[in-house]
């Protein structure tokens, strides 16, 4: 302290100043320390995500790990509710002028985000960053998020649906627990056999359940290699109409209708994933179709509830064209309008979340796919999948999927509304208000209306 004080005095004393380099050196040291302290001032970035429940803690711990590696960056992690809510909140925050740096947006929000023009395309950051190799990523995942040849956001959590089944109940019903249904026809047959009624004729066990969600319709369309909208599923131009009222769509609607009408399937309310899981876990339903993202959790609960769990690919209509599944889930968007330093920090964090190590952690703890090939390879070599065959099901299903516009997934601006319309149609059909054919035709008409309404603002 005193020394420093003296130095200031000595600055005034030119004689001293010229006398030697000692003082100059000291000033330099002080300057450097000051610079270091200044640059140590943490760069704060905000990250909004939609991964509820126990995943909140998982994401927090991942962020903490990042901060340990990058002590100069502070990541403020916020769980902002469902995918819907998160998009909503982003829009509000953008208008209010305080958007987060990174936000997790669901797959179907991609077009809305691009139209909003508020994001820094990931592609631009990748092009500038020589250390980053996109070649390590799974092409199936990249194909979904690449629109018009440009990668706008970083794939993060990807999943698709698989068939879960209760081997214990299979055995009870006299079915081979190692032969899950492979076709729609078999699915109907199995569901019938797995349905149990009590003396009063009330169903105490249903053959199958899945959440009443349009996602399953979308997936089963891809499974049959059929598009949802025109312009190559919206991938070669803004779609102008829905095109799912065809044999593929009808097959799936009819399947759903048959299962429900015969009392072999129990349905949930709209988009109620938990309810479907609950039917399956409480053994009220013997089969479940849902996202792979719950594999780890369901496997744990199955063990707790004392039944053996099996998983299988989605069944297909016997004679249908073979397609594949669409990558679902969400991706990470970097929002512009922040200082370059913060954008860079956000990019570092996004890169970190997609490192092999993090992707392995994410994959094995949740059931979402790793978005990188080398994560899969590492796990293969470690023999992970031999021990966790249920994890492998989804992965194989994805790897065996044909890659084309139909399986890359539709790009629709009005996707949230189209989903709602498809769900309404399904509910109308299940309640006997419309035949499967009418419901599908109605949904196509309404979806087209929604798409055109959305496009209207962009027509000028």
């Amino acid at each position, binding site marked *: 302290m005193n020394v420093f004080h003296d130095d200031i005095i000595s600055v005034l004393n030119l004689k001293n100043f010229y006398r030697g380099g000692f003082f100059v050196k000291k000033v330099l040291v002080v300057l450097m320390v000051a610079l270091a302290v200044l640059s140590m001032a943490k760069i704060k970035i905000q990250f909004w995500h939609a991964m509820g429940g126990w995943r909140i803690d998982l994401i927090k711990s991942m962020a903490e790990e990042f901060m340990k590696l990058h002590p100069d960056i502070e990541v403020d992690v916020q769980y902002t509710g469902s995918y819907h809510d998160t998009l*909503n909140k982003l829009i509000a925050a953008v208008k209010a002028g305080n958007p987060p740096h990174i936000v997790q947006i669901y797959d179907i929000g991609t077009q809305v985000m691009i139209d909003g*023009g508020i994001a820094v395309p990931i592609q631009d950051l990748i092009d500038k960053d020589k250390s980053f190799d996109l070649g390590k990523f799974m092409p199936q995942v990249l194909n979904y998020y690449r629109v018009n040849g440009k990668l706008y956001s970083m794939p993060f959590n990807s999943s698709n649906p698989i068939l879960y089944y209760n081997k214990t109940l299979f055995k009870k019903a006299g079915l081979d627990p190692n032969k899950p249904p492979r076709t729609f026809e078999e699915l109907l047959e199995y569901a019938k056999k797995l349905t149990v009624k009590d003396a009063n004729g009330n169903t105490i066990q249903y053959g199958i359940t899945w959440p009443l969600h349009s996602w399953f319709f979308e997936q089963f369309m891809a499974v049959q290699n059929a598009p949802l909208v025109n312009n190559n599923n919206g991938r070669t131009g803004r779609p102008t109409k829905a095109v799912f009222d065809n044999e593929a769509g009808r097959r799936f609607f009819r399947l759903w209708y048959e299962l429900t009408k015969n009392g072999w399937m129990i349905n949930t309310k709209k988009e109620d994933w938990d309810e479907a899981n609950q039917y399956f876990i409480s053994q009220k339903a013997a089969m479940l179709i849902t996202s792979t993202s719950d594999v780890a959790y369901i496997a744990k609960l199955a063990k707790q509830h004392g039944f053996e769990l099996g998983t299988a690919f989605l069944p297909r209509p016997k004679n249908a064209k073979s397609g594949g599944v669409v990558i679902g889930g969400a991706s990470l968007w970097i929002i512009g309008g922040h200082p370059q330093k913060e954008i860079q920090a956000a990019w570092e964090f996004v890169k970190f979340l997609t490192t092999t190590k993090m992707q392995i952690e994410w994959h094995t703890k949740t059931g979402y796919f790793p978005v990188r090939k080398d994560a899969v390879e590492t796990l293969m070599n470690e023999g992970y999948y031999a021990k966790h065959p249920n994890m492998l099901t989804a992965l194989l299903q994805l790897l065996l999927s044909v890659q084309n516009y139909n399986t890359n997934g539709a790009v629709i601006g009005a996707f949230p509304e189209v989903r709602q319309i498809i769900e*309404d149609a399904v509910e109308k059909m299940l*309640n006997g208000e419309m035949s499967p054919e009418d419901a599908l035709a109605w949904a196509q008409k309404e979806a087209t209306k929604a798409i055109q309404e959305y496009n209207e*603002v962009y027509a000028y």
Partner: protein
Amino acid sequence: MSRKIIPYILLIPTFLIIIIFIYWPAVYSFKLSFYRISPFGNRMIFVGIRNFKNLFHDPDYITALKITAIYVSVSVALTIFASFFIALLLNMKVPGTPVYKALLFIPYAISPAISGTLWSFLLNPVVGHVNYFMSKFFGLRVEWLTTKPYALYAIIIASVWKVMPFDIIFYLAGVQNVPDDLLEASTLDGASTWTRIWKIIFPLLSPITFYLVIMNIISFMFSSFAIVDVMTRGGPGNYTTTMIYKLYLDAFAFQKTGIASAESVILFIIMTIVTIAYFYFGERRVHYQ
């Protein structure tokens, strides 16, 4: 300070809030209802009254209007009659009345969201008690929240349960004001209890009934949002999608700001009619009394 200025100062806080947070939004929604606006608000085009035209040609919106009308009128009727009846019972001051009162009033303090949660559980097909008792006593099992028409019944049950205490409180206060000799006299006349109730007491309480009908309409039109959101999410199909739920979906799920504003305007007009009716008929009734 002069007595002339003081009242204006006293009114400033109230009017600041009313004007900024009620009148301004009202005018704003009229303006926005003539536009089509992109989700992020970066595109905005003037469409005149097309948003309204589209709404009235949209079968979904028509359904929402119908469902709202049915849901509100059935719920109001049920609440009014059940509450009136319960208030009469409570007014008999049988032993234990304070306990019944306390228990019956509790749902007033409970939110619609919680009412929806409680009834979602009770009506849950797997773990709920209602289905268990129904199947035990009537051999009946119902998917309450996902099938027609039970989903509507379910939200009506949860709504009526929540709103009833409000009405009971008012009726009870009203019945207590009915002169005893009026009640006694009619008994001596040999008029049956039933006639006495419907011919004398109910008409006497008509100003209260009128007030309650208006208040209940508002509760069911708006607070019902939480119940629908928690219990059915507007399903099955759009079977329980009320106007306010539709407004929420269009505004905050589908980001159709212009169309949602048009829906706001329609709700605004409906509520203005209700207010005028309340003012007009309410005044008249009081004069008759």
